[in-house]
C-alpha cells in the first residue's frame, strides 16, 4: 500500500510537468493547427533561465521563497517572450504554407534551441540549488516531500487559472473563436495575430514553470532534457484529444501515473513502449482521443 501511494504521488508530480507542457502543445494546435515540435525545448530553456536566476540570487542571501518566486516569474516572462519570438520569425511567415513546411521549421527551431543552450551552458548537467531538500512527511507509510506537494498544488492552480482565463475573459473567448474558424474570427474584428502571440506566450510560460519545477525536483538539468518531456507531453495532449484543454491536463496526469506504475511494477526500460501502446490502443478505440470531439465533414 505504501508503495502504491508513493507511486501515485510520484506519478502526479511528473504528470504535472507533462500536463503543463501538454497545454502548450494543445493550445497552439487548437489555434494554428501546428504541432510545435520546439515546445519541449522551450520547456528546457525555461529550466535553464530559472537556473540562471536562482544561482545568481543564491549569492544575495535572499529568503529562498522570494528567490524562487522571482526565478519563476522571470523565467515565465522570458520564456514566454521566446515563444512569441519563435512564432513571429519561424512560424508566422509559413502559416498559409503546406503544413509540413512549418513542421520542419519547428524541428529546426528545436535543433537550434538545443544546440544554442549546448553552446552557452555546455554539454554536462547543471545542478539546481537545493532550496528545500527532501524534507517531507509520512502518509500511509509513504514518504512524501514538500516539493512534490508544492508542485502538484501549483500545477493545479495554474491549470484552473488557465481554464478560467480561456472561458471567462475576452481574450480567452477570442482564442476559442480562433480555434473554430480563424477567418470568421478575423472578420468579427479579432486581432488574430495578437491572439496567436498570446497563445504562444501562455503556452511557453506554463512550460517554463514546468521546467523550473523539474529542475527543483530532479536537481539536475541539461540541454537534452526537453526531448523526453516534450515527447511524453505531446503524447499526453493527443491522448486527451489534441486541441482540448481539459484533455491535455487529464492526459498529462495519466501519462505521469502510467510512467510511475510501469517503472515501479515492471521496468523503466519499457516505460515508453507501455505509454505508446496505451496511446495507440486508445486511438484505435477512440480515434479522437479521450476528450476530443468528432469532426464531421460536409460533402
Amino acid at each position, binding site marked *: 500500500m505504501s508503495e502504491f501511494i508513493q507511486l501515485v504521488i510520484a506519478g502526479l508530480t511528473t504528470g504535472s510537468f507533462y500536463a503543463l507542457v501538454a497545454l502548450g502543445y494543445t493550445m497552439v494546435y487548437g489555434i494554428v493547427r501546428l504541432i510545435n515540435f520546439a515546445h519541449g525545448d522551450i520547456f528546457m530553456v525555461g529550466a535553464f533561465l530559472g537556473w540562471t536566476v536562482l544561482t545568481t540570487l543564491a549569492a544575495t542571501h535572499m529568503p529562498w521563497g522570494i528567490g524562487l518566486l522571482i526565478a519563476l516569474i522571470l523565467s515565465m516572462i522570458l520564456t514566454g517572450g521566446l515563444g512569441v519570438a519563435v512564432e513571429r520569425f519561424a512560424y508566422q511567415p509559413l502559416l498559409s504554407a503546406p503544413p509540413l513546411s512549418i513542421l520542419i521549421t519547428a524541428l529546426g527551431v528545436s535543433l537550434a534551441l538545443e544546440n544554442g543552450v549546448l553552446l552557452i551552458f555546455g554539454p554536462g548537467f547543471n545542478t539546481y540549488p537545493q532550496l528545500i531538500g527532501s524534507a517531507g512527511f509520512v502518509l500511509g507509510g509513504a514518504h512524501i516531500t514538500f516539493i512534490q506537494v508544492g508542485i502538484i498544488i501549483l500545477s493545479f492552480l495554474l491549470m484552473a487559472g488557465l481554464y478560467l482565463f480561456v472561458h471567462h475573459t475576452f481574450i480567452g473567448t477570442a482564442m476559442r473563436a480562433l480555434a473554430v474558424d480563424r477567418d470568421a474570427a478575423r472578420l468579427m474584428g479579432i486581432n488574430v495575430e495578437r491572439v496567436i502571440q498570446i497563445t504562444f506566450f501562455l503556452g511557453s510560460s506554463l512550460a517554463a514553470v514546468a521546467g523550473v519545477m523539474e529542475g527543483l525536483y530532479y536537481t539536475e538539468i541539461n540541454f537534452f532534457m526537453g526531448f523526453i518531456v516534450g515527447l511524453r507531453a505531446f503524447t499526453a495532449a493527443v491522448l486527451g484529444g489534441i486541441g482540448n484543454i481539459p484533455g491535455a491536463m487529464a492526459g498529462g496526469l495519466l501519462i505521469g501515473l502510467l510512467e510511475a506504475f510501469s517503472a515501479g511494477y515492471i521496468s523503466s526500460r519499457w516505460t515508453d513502449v507501455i505509454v505508446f501502446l496505451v*496511446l495507440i490502443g486508445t486511438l484505435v478505440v477512440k480515434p479522437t482521443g479521450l476528450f476530443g470531439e468528432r469532426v464531421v465533414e460536409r*460533402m
Partner: protein
Amino acid sequence: MKPTMPISAASLGVAALAVAAVLPFLCDNYIVDVALTIVTYGILALGLNIVVGYAGLLDLGYAAFFAIGAYTTALLETLLNFNFWETIPVALILAGVSGIIIGYPTLRLRSDYLAIVTLGFGEIVRIIATNLNITGGPNGIYGINPANVLGHDITAPKAIYALGLVFLVIVLVLVLRLGQSRLGRAWTSLREDESAAEAVGVPTLRVKMLAYVIGALIGGLGGSLFAARFGTIDPTSFTYAQSVTILIIVVLGGRGSIPGVLLGAIIVAGLPEALRFLNLWREFVFAIALILLMLLRPQGLWPARLRRVAAPSAAAAHHTPRAEPAAQVAEATAGEPEMLLEAKGVSRVFGGLKAVSDVAFTVHRGEILSIIGPNGAGKTTVFNCLTGVLVPSAGDILWDGRSLTRLAPHRVVARGLARTFQGIRLFDNMTVFENVLVGMDHRFRVPLLAELIGLPSARRDTGLHYAAGRNWLEFVGLGDKAGLRAGDLPYGDQRRLEIARGLAGQPRLLLLDEPAAGMNPTEKQSLMGLIRRIRDLGTTVLLIEHDMLLVMGVSDRIIVMDRGQIIAEGPPSAIQANPRVIEAYLGTEEEVEDDGSLGAPILGAMA
C-alpha cells in the same frame, strides 16, 4: 509510355548519375564514404517520399523500417549463416509486414495523430532492439558479413559505394514508375482530397496501406545495405533523430519531387560534412540554415512538377474506336435492366433531426430525373445515401436487384454510380487530364506489377485508358485544357471537369449535385446541352438543381422533396401545376399575398 520528366531534368538526372558513377575513380575514400552516406539517405528518403510526398501522410518513425531491415540481415547472417542476398527477401517481408502493422491502426486516424503514432512505433522498435538480448542490446550486433558478388566480398569503400548506387538506381526506377502509375495518381488524389478520392472510386484505405508498405519495403532494403556496409549495427542508428533527418530531406528537397528528394539528401547528408570546420557550432548553424531555407522556399528547394503523364493528342485519341464516348457508354450500359435503381423507404436521422424520412422512388434506364426542393429538404442527404457516403438509418437501396447500402463509396462507384459535388471538389494540384484519369482508374484490370514493368498488355490498356480520358475532356469541351492545373480553371470549367471525371468512370447512372450553381446564363445554357448529350449517349442522369429553367428544360421526370419527404412526382408540366409544390416553394396563400413580389420570379421561371 514516354518518360515524363522534362528533357532538361531527365538529362540532368542521367548526368548526375554519370558523375556519381565515376566518382570513386576520381576521389579519395573519405569523399566516397560521404557519397555512400548520401546514397543511403537517398534510398531512405525516396521510400519516405512515397508516404509523405506522394500520399501526403505523415511518418515520424520511418527509421523503424530501416532498423527492421538492418537487424534482419544482421541476425540471419550471424545466427543462421545466411548470405547477404538471401537475407534481403526476408528483410523485405518483415519490413512490409511491419508496414501493415503500423498502417492498419493508423488508417482511420486524422493526419495529425499519425505524427505521434508513427513516432511511437519508431520508438517502440528502437527500445525493443535496445532491451532484448538477441539483438545484442545497446551494443548491437557485430561481425555481419559483407555482401558477396560473383565470389568477391564487397568490403572496399568504392565497391560498397558501387553496390549502393545500384540499389539507388533500382529504387529510383521503381518510384518513378510508381509516380506515373494509377497507384501514384491514387496517392496524389488522396493527398489532395481524401473524401473526393473515395467518392470517385479510389479505395483509399487500401491505397494508404500500400503507401506504408511500399515505403517500408524501401526502408528495409536500405537497412540491409546499411548492415552489410558497416558490418556492425546498434540502436543509436535508428533513433527518432534519424527519422526526422529523413523527413527533413523529403520536405526540404520538395515533397513528391524525385530530383528534389535527391538534392535534399545531398544537402542534409553532405552539409554537416562541409561544415566540420565550425566544430561545436556546426549543428546550430545547420539548424538555422534549415529554418531559413524553409522560410525562403516553403515548397522545398526543387518542388514537384505538376504533370506526371501527358494527354495523348486529340487525333491519336480518335484513332482508338473503343475509347470513343459512345463506345464507352455502350460497353457500360450493355444489358442493364429497365429499372436501374430502387430506393425503398430510405430514412436518415442526424441526432434528433430526420433529414430524410421514408423516401421511395425508382430511376429508369435512359431518363433524366431531377430532385428539387427548398434548401434543407434532404436532397443531398439522399445523394449521400445513394453513393455510400452515408448509411441510411432505415430502408434499402437496390441496384441491379442488389443492396447498395453499407458499401464503401468506392465500391458504389465500381457498381456504376458516379457523382459530382455541390461544392466543387477537384484535385486542385493535379492536371485536368489526371483528374479525369483518377475517375477512371478503378476500371483498370491489368495488375499493378504489369503496369510498372510496362508489359504489352498493360501498355495497350493504358493507351485505351488515356485515349478515353482525352475523349471525355473533348466531350465536355475541355480538350485544349488537358495539361492545366485543375485548380486554375475558371469556375464553369471546373464544374464541367467534375462531370468529365464522373463520366470517365463509365457509370450507368450519373448523379449531378447542383451543377448549375454559380453559373451565368450562357454557361447554364451549355450545361443544359451537355446534360442532354450525356443522356443521348445512353447514360442515365439523376440531377439535383435549384435552377428551374434548367430543371424544367431537361428533365423527363421530377421528384419534389420538402422537409425530408417526397411531396410530388411526375413530368415537368404536372409538377408546375401541383398545388403542394407551389405551397412548398411559396408558402400558403395568405403568405403569398404578404410577400408576392418574392414569389413572382420563381413562378415565372416555372411557367
